[in-house]
């Protein structure tokens, strides 16, 4: 780890004043569960680390007139243990509960989950976001068993965000601040597939920080997350699905299906979701939607198995949301 300056401001304005025009000037530290490792591995270095955990305005989970406001420094443990979240947003509760380990849930934050860099081992090994060598990506014919099955490159990494799919499915918005103002971005648009190696996977500038997440009321919206992983603890999901079902009586009025860990961003299966309109959720309709959700998959040489896992995740998330068996494995 190269040496860096450190500051732990108590106010948002102070923090914003300490950020810079590039991430090599300054970076935001919250839980640190990933940032510190990236710096140890020499994949990332910066002149200044700005700890934002002492800024009270960035914490807390509150009900607002429109839904829920989640501060960006809320930890996964706080999120998973909040009765406000568990009651109305099981998709978010399950996603938070599924993250890594108790220690990571005690340290890691909502803002950090949204902003963390890809887990792609080529990226982590110093080959950059697109894993280029001699003008060619190493991924399509390389060690790609944990890589994307959607998107078609040149970004083959998968979004590392565990909360992203649930937030997109629930129609959340993300509030960002910089010293020149604040802006709000839909969760679905916050995650972007970078067009070049030096871009980020999120719509965030180096001088901005995530201040809060606003999740619209989900009263009457059946929602769930289902994750599939190799081991029950510490591991990253191989595939996950978050769903939100706006109901009209016993049938679906409008659905949202978002896949996780299968594309460079949380991946919206819009056609599959549209196909559920007017239907009730059953084994059959859930299977059809799951089939439709993976119809456009483009697996690489070693990750064809993820297509089946993604399909199963969608089906089980839909059945869980509808209250028909299959709550997530750790519930």
């Amino acid at each position, binding site marked *: 780890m190269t*040496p860096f300056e450190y500051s732990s401001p108590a106010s948002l304005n102070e923090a914003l004043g300490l950020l810079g025009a590039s991430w090599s000037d300054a970076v935001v530290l919250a839980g640190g569960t990933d940032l510190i490792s990236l710096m140890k591995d020499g994949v990332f270095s910066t002149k200044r680390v700005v700890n934002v955990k002492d800024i009270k305005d960035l914490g807390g989970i509150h009900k607002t007139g429109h839904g829920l406001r989640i501060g960006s420094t809320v930890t996964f443990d706080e999120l998973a243990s909040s009765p406000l979240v568990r009651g109305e947003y099981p998709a978010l509760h399950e996603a938070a509960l599924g993250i890594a380990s108790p220690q990571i849930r*005690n*340290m890691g934050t909502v803002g950090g989950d949204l902003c963390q860099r890809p887990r792609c081992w080529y990226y982590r090994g110093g080959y950059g976001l697109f894993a280029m060598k001699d003008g060619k990506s190493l991924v399509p014919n390389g060690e790609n068993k944990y890589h994307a099955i959607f998107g078609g490159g040149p970004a083959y990494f998968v979004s590392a965000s565990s909360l992203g799919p649930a937030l997109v499915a629930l129609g959340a918005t993300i509030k960002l601040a910089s010293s020149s*103002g604040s*802006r709000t971005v839909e969760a679905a648009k916050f995650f972007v597939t970078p067009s070049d190696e030096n871009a980020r996977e999120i719509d965030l500038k180096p001088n901005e920080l995530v201040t809060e997440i606003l999740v619209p009321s989900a009263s009457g919206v059946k929602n769930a997350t289902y994750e599939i992983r190799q081991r029950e603890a510490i591991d990253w999901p191989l595939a996950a699905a978050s769903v939100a079902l706006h109901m009209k009586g016993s049938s679906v009025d409008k659905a949202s299906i978002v896949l996780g860990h299968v594309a460079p961003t949380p991946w919206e299966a819009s056609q599959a979701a549209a196909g559920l309109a007017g239907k009730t959720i059953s084994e059959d309709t859930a299977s059809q939607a799951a089939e439709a959700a993976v119809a456009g998959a483009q697996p690489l040489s070693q990750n064809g198995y993820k297509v089946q896992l993604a399909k199963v995740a969608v089906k089980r998330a839909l059945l869980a949301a509808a209250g028909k068996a299959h709550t997530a494995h750790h519930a």
Partner: protein
Amino acid sequence: MSESDSKVPNKPPKTKPDFSRRGFLKGVGISGGVLSTGVLEPVAEAESTAKVDGPGAVPITLNINGKAHKLEVEPRVTLCDALRNRLEITAAKRVCDRGTCGACTVIINGKAVYSCTTLAIDAQGKRIETLEGFSTPAHPHAITKAFLDHDAEQCGYCTPGFVVAAKAFLDHTPNPTEADLKTGLGGNLCRCGTYMGIRKAVMQAAKEMKSAKVAKGTAHA
């Protein structure tokens, strides 16, 4: 326990940051105009008065096991390294050093965390508990004793982290089920594979800690 500068190895010179806050604020004024998405709400102009430390060694105070320890560390030094290399508090082990294996587990403000991915400077003002704080060879904690009873270690390198994680877990979950235990200790790895013994040990410790509390009349209803 304070250390003088002369004992700090390879301390880099204190350098001034090579970009100024004033220059930065000017830069933001320009880039702010080209933000294209979302709605910009005016906020008060940022006036940064926060203290910036480092990158050289900084005097810090850590509250470890109820005792204040003064030392000087660079901001990049992790809590794990500060404990082990600077304060000779060595129960927390540096194994994966990437927040995955749990051997470095300590308790901060009542919660189990990985000390290898916590900056020492960031642990100031918080209650840090290590194994040394609640279990010593002369006065072993019920969890430590239960580990011995159930042969819950082989090479022993993961053991202190497991005992600390188990204490944080039982403090929050005094009546665990087997399933609670699997999730609650899911942040620690044992490459020798002593999990069966560890689970038995922690269940036994839970019972003993509960009856000890009943005997003292401090059990929760």
